[in-house]
């Protein structure tokens, strides 16, 4: 049973705060029941402003992916490079909405064998110490 929590603002900061608590939260429109991730303050389908946070089940499947050999600085700092690539993907959540995430648990030496449709489970990757610690949304194959 998904947990409904009290209202935090529908912002990137609140979404990231939830990630730090190891929760992937979606936003649901209380008028038309549409579910969104990342958060939205206004429902694009019915324009209602009555939204609520709902925790996602954490189950999903791979809708599209890439193996990146040359990433942005923050990924290089986390130890990724040409010899140690990583996977970024678009995940279709069980709730029917999609989100961008890092994908773990795949054999990156054989990218041609990574399959769109692979079942995934939410994961949370932490990097940095103390105040600099950041939690990244990931999905594990």
């Amino acid at each position: 049973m998904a947990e409904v929590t009290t209202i935090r603002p529908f912002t990137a900061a609140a979404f990231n705060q939830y990630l730090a608590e190891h929760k992937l939260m979606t936003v649901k429109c209380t008028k038309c029941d549409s579910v969104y991730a990342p958060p939205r303050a206004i429902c694009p389908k019915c324009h209602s402003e009555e939204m609520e946070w709902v925790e996602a089940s954490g189950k999903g499947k791979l809708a599209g992916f890439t193996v990146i050999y040359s990433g942005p600085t923050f990924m290089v700092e986390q130890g990724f490079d040409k010899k140690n690539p990583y996977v970024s993907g678009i995940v279709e959540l069980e709730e029917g909405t999609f989100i961008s995430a890092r994908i773990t648990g795949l054999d990156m030496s054989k990218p041609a064998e990574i399959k769109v449709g692979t079942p995934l489970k939410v994961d949370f990757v932490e990097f940095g110490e103390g105040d600099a610690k950041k939690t990244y949304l990931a999905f594990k194959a």
Partner: protein
Amino acid sequence: MPKVKPLPRGVAMVGAGMSKFGAFAEKNSRDLFVESYKAMTKSVDKGFDPSRIDAMYVGNFSSDQFEHQAHIAPILADAIGLLPIPATRVEDACASGGVALRQGVMAIASGMADVVLVGGAEKMTALNTAAVTEALATAADVPFEIPAGFTFPGFYAAMASAYMAQYGMKSEHLMNVAIKNHDNAALNPNAQFGVTIQTWMEGRVAAALKKGKPAPTWSSIWDFLHDESGNPIIAYPLRLFDCSPVSDGAAAILLVAEEIAHQFTDHPIHIIGSAQASGSALHDRPSLTSIPAAKTAAANAYEMAGVTAKDIRIAEVHDCFTIAEVIASEDLGFFAPGEGFKAAEDGMTARNGAKPINTSGGLKAKGHPVGASGVAQAVEVWKQMQGQAEARQVDGDVSLALTHNVGATGSTCTVHVFERRN
């Protein structure tokens, strides 16, 4: 869907020019824009008095990040002696140029201006490749897409992975797009990479021999394109030759009200369709194999122009990556979903094919100075419609042409339809 209203006043292109695209250590965006403006003025058959220009719109994605220079529009207007006309910088990522073109169309159609200069300029090569990649990444939905590690090659690679899974395409199929666009660019003196892939490969062998190194033994361009040392993987499944380059360059076109076009040329190119649409981040779409904003912009531009996809003779589309050209050829209605990669393989999009795409060499080989690209597409349309495309001129009459310019993964798309009537 945005409402499609007819243009309240006709708009015509009466001149077009571009700088050479490439990497120019000694030139900034201002210098390149001056070159493009001079080329444009030469293209106006009957000449014109620059003081007739009422306004200027210039596409530029990020001179702030690339050159540490913001507020670039009045600087560019000053450089070509157009002060004090209103000069406006337009930013919608890689669609900045296409959106600037549309602003120019609207300024004339509304009656607020009679003569408008539309430009685009970007100077990217002062930064190294890693810094350029990060600057381009700011065009994404930064808080929600970037933490996943995505880069722009990565976004389009993810679209390619979904397309391959849905339609059975192999990554090899995308090489047909790169080969064709390099073939076209080899005939375009303004292209950054004006060489065929065959010539490129032979150059690599010659360079190795000159240095006394063992020469690579590629047996064909296909061998070269499959080889990690010839064509390294950037973001699986995309390789180096699937990606447009980092470029410096500028483009300029002159738009005027239809009723005064004959004062500038006997052969104006009428802009009969102009549309723009916006889209979500890549993850917020029902499908990764099509760009909804492109389909909307195309439908609206066709409706405004009163034409269909079938009527279009040539198109310049936004091939920032090879997969983007395949998807564009479907979103524009030239081919059915899942058929675009086969059309490229069958030569249908080649210069002598049924639907020539990117006769200029496209972003892939002509170069992609991002804010200039949407305007440079109109420059190629101008040349093809005037019969001035030299060795790359397509056969027969080019009476209808189209440009398709995309920002980010499709958060912005513009489509323009051009007509030559005589």
